[in-house]
């Protein structure tokens, strides 16, 4: 019984992605179901659309910068949390994790107001900052997880063998939390790359990331080249998801603790 329901639900989960991929090969000028014929021309067309190329470039750049920045910031925070007394740990933890708790609309509205105020509106920097705020908590979660799996006396063993603190860090700690670091970075990249909730506030005209571009087209007639773009992102993300599950175990990112 549960097996049958599970398979139905899995089919439901896969439905939009599969439908996107299937219809992207249609020969018709407007998307309909079932797709007519089979062609790759929409992929070719998409690759020639300057707005697509520009937004893809922008998304990749922003996601890369966000991944790097939030990995550094998140890792530093994790180390800090580990070394603080419980009395200081709790408020810092609350501060860093709260972007996950507040509704995104609240964050989005507050940020657009703030960036307008300081004159940083319509700047990719604003988008990057926004994304860093919402991706860093995930990095902290992952890296803290890896750190707490390390026995404390590993550091002591390193120190007792005569390594100064920074060498203990580089030679002993970092290699052991590599998985958490890479996973955190990769995850931050994906979260930034697919983000539309926050970007919709911050990515003003001339500064459209790929999801915002797609979002902007959603109320118009469905053009096949956009479907082709969507199906590319579906396939790309799927590959990344499998990679992530294999490296860090996705469940750890979403488990509702910390």
């Amino acid at each position: 019984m549960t097996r049958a329901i599970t398979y139905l639900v899995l089919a439901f989960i896969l439905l939009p992605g599969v439908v996107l991929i299937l219809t992207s090969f249609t020969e018709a000028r407007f998307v309909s179901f079932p797709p007519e014929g089979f062609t790759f021309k929409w992929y070719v067309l998409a690759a020639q659309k300057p707005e697509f190329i520009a937004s893809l470039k922008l998304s990749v750049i922003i996601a890369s910068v966000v991944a790097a920045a939030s990995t550094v910031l998140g890792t530093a925070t994790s180390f800090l949390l580990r070394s603080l007394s419980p009395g200081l740990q709790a408020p810092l933890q609350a501060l860093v994790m709260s972007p996950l708790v507040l509704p995104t609309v609240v964050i989005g509205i507050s940020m657009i107001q703030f960036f307008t105020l300081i004159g940083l509106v319509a700047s990719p920097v604003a988008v990057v900052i926004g994304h860093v705020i919402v991706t860093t908590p995930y990095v902290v979660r992952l890296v803290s997880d890896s750190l707490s799996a390390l026995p404390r006396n590993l550091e002591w063993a390193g120190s007792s063998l005569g390594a100064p603190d920074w060498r203990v860090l580089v030679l002993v700690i970092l290699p052991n939390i590599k998985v958490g670091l890479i996973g955190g970075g990769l995850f931050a990249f994906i979260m930034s790359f697919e983000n539309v909730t926050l970007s919709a506030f911050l990515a003003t005209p001339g500064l459209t990331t790929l999801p915002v571009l797609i979002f902007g087209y959603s109320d118009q007639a469905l053009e096949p080249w956009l479907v082709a773009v969507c199906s590319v992102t579906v396939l790309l993300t799927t590959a990344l998801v499998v990679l992530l599950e294999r490296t860090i175990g996705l469940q750890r990112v979403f488990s509702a603790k910390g």
Partner: protein
Amino acid sequence: MNKIVQKVAVAAPVCAVFLLFFVLPVALMLSASFERIDTLTLEVVERFTFAQYFKFLTDSFYLRILLNTLWISAGTTLVSLLVGYPVALHMSRLEGLSRQIILIIVLSPLLISHAVLNFGWLIVLNSNGLVNSTLRSAGLIQTPLPLLHTALAVILGLVHSHLPFIVLPIENALRSVRPEVSRAAVSLGANSFRLFRYVTLPLSIKGIVTGSVIVFSLSASSFVIPVVLGGVRVRTMASVAFEEVMLNLNAPFAAAVSLLLLAMTTIAVAALGWIGRKLQPPALVQQAAKPASEGAA
């Protein structure tokens, strides 16, 4: 001494980033929600007033949107539970690769952009989309059903993208129940329904509550999905707030709406937690208070 300097050197930038780019903006927004602006010139005409809150809470148009948001979120939570529980139950009995594959599929909506997923749903729900074409070729309908821009479409999209948040905590709770406990119940005469009713379900209430809280608050504050799948006909507080700040440039009103949304979800979440504690057997509440001694096993 050196250690303290080190810690401060790390703490300072971390705190600075979050205080400057997160706490300060939210604080500014809070204060902005008490302002009133001239909607033409966008000049602030009043510094401290409850006008925005008043406007929302006294206008039946907006109150209907509030109710709408409530029932859409509640509906999404309920449907997610009904759909997600069997999946969690099935997953909790699996090991290894088969579980990993299901896990990846279940989590996939979280990592694909909502904008992209919306596009998929548009193709499914369109007047010449998957559902309507299928029904038409089966001869069940002549004219396409208006599926898009309905509350149902919104709930469908929200359930889809928030399902993982309900499956994971429930599966987690179910997994911590030893298989022998179920066997004990069966050996004492429980058939599969009673096993579920008297053992499995009570032991997974914690997961149900955790999952429901997350799904409820996330779907209440989602606007990308309601904007696209609900269109102008189905509006929620989040989509109103989004439009107010982005289209009407009425930041104070948007701020007030989103803060009311926050207040509403907080109350709902507290209520859910309260119900959960009522439903949960007292032993498990006490156990939860203790540091999990066996949880790791």
